[in-house]
């Protein structure tokens, strides 16, 4: 069993996955996407998950993000067993602690950047003025002042991803999950996004878990976890130089 967490650090665990498996389908056509994953992420960490296609990186992200439930194993989020929570409780966990950045941005089309960023605050029940202030601040932090009124269709890919990041951080989440955030962007834009994520991690203390297949992007993270065939590969690249 190889260590999938930085056991020499004395930080509190934010996430602890133990023996997670995930099987899609049933019987003969069943496909085992995860075959027993143990992963620990501490508060304030920046972890990159790498691996070839079909190795289960996205599946583990979806489970981390409470969008999907594991077939077996336990998932503790700050000591809470997520696998025992109901659909609504998981939604509330997403609402209050998690921020998502998707490869395909997933912004609401025909909706202004500001409204997109306000959306999580609306579900949190914040008042209009709080929403506006926070959403503007979040857009400013991703360097998008002046673009508040533009709809997703009027923005470039990099800008869209930055709006998506603004939407993810506007609630000041505990954990930011980014699934191939730079997958659709060129190198220059990708670097900007990564610098943004790094800054958020350092300055605001937001823990980040990011899936990527690009080693250059993974290099921004403090730790890289390699997935192969539904398992974590033993080589654990700790990044000491910071």
């Amino acid at each position, binding site marked *: 069993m190889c260590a999938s967490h930085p056991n020499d650090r004395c930080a509190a665990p934010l996430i602890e996955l133990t023996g997670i498996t995930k099987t899609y389908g049933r019987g003969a056509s069943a496909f085992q996407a995860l075959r027993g994953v143990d992963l620990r992420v501490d508060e304030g960490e920046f972890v990159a998950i790498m691996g070839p296609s079909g190795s289960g990186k996205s599946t583990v992200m979806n489970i981390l993000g409470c969008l*999907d439930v594991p077939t077996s194993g336990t998932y503790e989020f700050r000591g809470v067993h997520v696998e025992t929570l109901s*659909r609504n409780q998981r*939604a509330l966990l997403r609402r209050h602690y998690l921020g998502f950045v998707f490869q395909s941005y997933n*912004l609401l089309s025909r909706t202004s950047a500001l409204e997109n960023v306000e959306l*999580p605050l609306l*579900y949190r029940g914040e008042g209009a003025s709080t929403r506006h202030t926070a959403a503007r601040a979040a857009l400013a932090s991703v360097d998008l002042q002046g673009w508040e009124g533009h709809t997703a269709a009027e923005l470039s890919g990099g800008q869209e991803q930055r709006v998506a990041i603004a939407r993810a951080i506007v609630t000041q989440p505990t954990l930011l999950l980014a699934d191939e955030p730079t997958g659709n962007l060129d190198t220059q834009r990708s670097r900007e996004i990564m610098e943004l994520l790094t800054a958020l991690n350092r300055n605001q203390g937001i823990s980040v878990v990011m899936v990527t297949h690009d080693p250059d992007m993974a290099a921004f993270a403090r730790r890289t976890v390699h997935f192969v065939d539904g398992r974590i590969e033993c080589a654990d690249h700790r990044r000491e130089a910071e």
Partner: protein
Amino acid sequence: MVWSTIVLAVRAICRNLMRAFLTILGIVIGVSAVVSMVTLGNGATRAVSDQIARLGSNLLMVNPGQRLGPGRDTAGAPNFKVADATAIETQISGLKAVAPSVSKSITAVHMANNWSTSVTGTNAAYFQISNWQLAAGRVFNETEEKAGKAVCVIGDTVRRELYGRQNPVGDKLRIKQFSCEVVGLLQAKGQGSMGMDQDNTVIMPLRTVQRRLAGNQDVSTLLVSLQDGVSSDKVKNQIEQLMRERRRIAENEDDNFNVLDTRQIAETLSGTTRVMTMLLGAVAAVSLLVGGIGIMNIMLVSVTERTREIGIRLAIGALEREVLFQFLVEAVVLSAFGGFVGIVLATLASVGLARVIQVPYLFNPQINVLAFLFSAAIGVIFGYFPARRAAQLDPIEALRHE
């Protein structure tokens, strides 16, 4: 949560105005069709019953021949005489008045104007029986009736065509070879229940028409008005009995005359218009149904389209019930707005059309409420259930949806 959901719903509607417009279009058309058709139908029914009321209620019409209507068989059925009217008046109780009458089509001439109209010869009781009011002048008196003097009372159409803006009372009118003094002008009644112009008439003493126009002693119709509270069936039977005696009809022979009760006509006619209203309403209901199917389609398509959006909302922490509530609010807002616009359009259309086809505009709250509720129900049902299906998906599945 409620307020923020309403904000979300309104934003979602504004984001796609075209879709919203198409969605409500079906409802608008359906609701306005049903409401205006039923409203106009009700107006038409009211118009018919009003006209029958103007014709005179509690009125029996005795005509020679076996039946009334187009192609009525008068062959071999002798006309009445004045004596028949007198006999009814003296031998049957419970009557208000009896008016024998005979009508002829003639051309009336005044100065350079001439006008085709019909002359009715009758007595002074006719005005009361037929619910005529005088606009000016007087009706002819008994002396003039007995003497068969050339005096007449004219309807409003005849006045308009022959005299224009002049006052006809006291002026002369020429009919065939004789000249006739206009002593009175009738108030306009408007269109009759069969669509004829009731004001296109000239009324003269019976004897004048018999002597100067018909050249015989015949009477074609006996109008009998009943006192209030008298059973028209009973009087009808008595008149039939009396006429059979007077016309010497054998026991085994059919009547060669008929007695018509205006109440019966009224019932038949309002029955007919009611059926027409129901028919129109049914046709319009089909259009409401078709509108409903349109909404259903657009709602289904839009929810399928929006599955991704539902996935995004779920992923950033919306509860299933919040997403559902948003779609429900959207559906209610759209259908209620559609229903409201439909009712407004229907009101405008029915007020306008009622004026064109000359029926009164009657506001019918039931049909408005019914059409509104129906449209709202369609919108809610077909907006809600597909959305529920989408909201129950795993967020990740909804997100993958293209």
